[in-house]
């Protein structure tokens, strides 16, 4: 598959794939090279994985490993250099209808000329959702992120964390089938962060939405995900695709104090350290058997 892998080592491990039409979202041999005046920048070398419908996967990786780039390719904002993204079996060539994205740069993703409520409402209004239904969805979403008291404020009157919650409310109100989130909690305080993590899990279970959640916080990835996809540092491939075998019912105190939680976060931590030191993912395959799929 990759000509540059040295002989003797196994090829870079791909993420988990599903047979036939079971996958909601498929990423196949995705490669992205930015062509700039200063030369080509290879942001992502080769990524392959599937998400099944209703799955919640977290994506972790060192800074600059191409997480944002991957999300932009998945959401159809950018065409990959090689490989493809399939949504329900159809290649993605532009932003799909039933997909919502929460961007990393929360401060720049809300319309500063619209009030909070109008921001959340706009995508629904644009879709022609009737007034009464729209009002309900917007109210529920604002309530869910704890912002029902500021619907008439402008985004720039709010703190960074509140702005990010507005962006999350907008995505939730939109009722997407696939929700992509790019480090959405980077700017919120610890308490709000914990609340929002639980909110994401609640929304995920209630709506049955497929979520790909990018974070650099290891604890968060283990706490939130059913699965954690770890990216290597550049040249970016999948370092490991780890199943999180924690009980489905999670809560901040108990889940985080489970021995298995600690094991998993140790493992993810190690993998990221390895990734940062530029260890080839082939080495990761060996450690995988010791911690990744060890008995719970």
């Amino acid at each position, binding site marked *: 598959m990759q000509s540059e892998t040295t002989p003797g080592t196994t090829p870079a491990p791909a993420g988990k794939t599903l047979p036939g039409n079971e996958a909601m979202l498929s990423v196949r041999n995705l490669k992205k090279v930015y062509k700039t005046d200063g030369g080509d920048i290879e942001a992502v070398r080769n990524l392959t994985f599937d998400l099944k419908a209703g799955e919640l996967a977290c994506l972790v990786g060192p800074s600059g490993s191409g997480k944002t780039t991957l999300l932009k390719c998945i959401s159809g*904002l950018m065409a990959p250099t090689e490989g493809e993204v399939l949504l329900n079996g159809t290649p993605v060539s532009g932003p799909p209808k039933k997909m919502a994205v929460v961007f990393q740069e929360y401060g*720049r*993703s809300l*319309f500063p*000329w619209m009030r909070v409520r109008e921001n959340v409402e*706009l995508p629904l209004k644009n879709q022609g959702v009737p007034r009464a239904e729209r009002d309900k969805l917007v109210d529920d979403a604002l309530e869910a992120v704890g912002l029902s008291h500021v619907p008439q404020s*402008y985004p*720039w009157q709010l703190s960074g964390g509140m702005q990010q919650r507005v962006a999350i409310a907008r995505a939730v109100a939109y009722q997407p089938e696939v929700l992509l989130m790019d480090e959405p909690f980077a700017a919120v305080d610890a308490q709000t962060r914990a609340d929002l993590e639980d909110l994401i899990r609640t929304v995920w279970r209630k709506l049955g939405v497929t979520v790909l959640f990018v974070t650099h916080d290891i604890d968060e990835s283990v706490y939130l995900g059913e699965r954690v996809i770890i990216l290597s540092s550049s040249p970016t491939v999948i370092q490991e695709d780890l199943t999180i075998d924690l009980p489905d019912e999670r809560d901040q105190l108990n889940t985080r104090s489970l021995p298995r939680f600690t094991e998993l976060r140790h493992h993810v931590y190690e993998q990221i350290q390895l990734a940062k030191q530029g260890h080839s993912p082939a080495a990761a395959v060996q450690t995988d058997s010791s911690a990744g799929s060890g008995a719970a």
Partner: protein
Amino acid sequence: MRFLKTLGYLLALPLILVAIWWASTLGETNFFVPTPALLAEAFAETWFGERIFSDVLPSIGRLVVGVASAIIIGIVAGLLIGSVKWLRDLTEPVLEFFRAIPPPVLVPVLMLLMGITDGMKVAVIISGCVWPVLLNTIEGVRAIDGVLSDSAHTYGIHGWARIKYLVLPSAGPQIMAGIRQCLSIGLILMVISEMFASSSGLGFTIVQFQRSFAIPEMWSGIVVLGLIGVALSFIFQWTERRVLRWYHGLREVENAV
């Protein structure tokens, strides 16, 4: 109380200036500089009568039509050129050239082409006023934030909705700056378009008074122009404050950090 204070600030300086003017014209009698009383008298006599309908209103009408057309043309063309890359690359050098031509030189040209008509005068105003609006709109459309644009894109906001909810508001501050310039250029061109071979209008009347040495009347015409300018400026500021309230608020927050 607040209202009185605002009014005080508004009128204090003009009143002081008139007082200085009055004091300096007390002793001497310079034929070319009338006293305030004389000017006020000439003003009332000259402008509160037939001339409102024969000169002032037609001039203002042409100004309004010219400026409004320039704003609409500038915004529509600016949206188009700003959003389409190849159109921008194609038109940019040409636009710079046309913008560099001082609009008054177009008066004789347009006069030959269109005759001395209202249409010609409006065309002169448009030809000068359209540039700041057009170029600012192009600039504003180009400067739309990438993340905001991506957000709109992922939420399926395309076409007209994109223009209405994203492009126009985002370029709003720049467009308003263009309109401000457009208004002052418009007033100048309104006068100039009436100074050549015309038979009515404010510009014509003022030149007429000057030629017949009706000095106080000539000055009173200049006062009328000043008043129109002030009125335009007030209307502009009032509108701008409403349209760009979010922008001023945002700037305040940013500056406070």
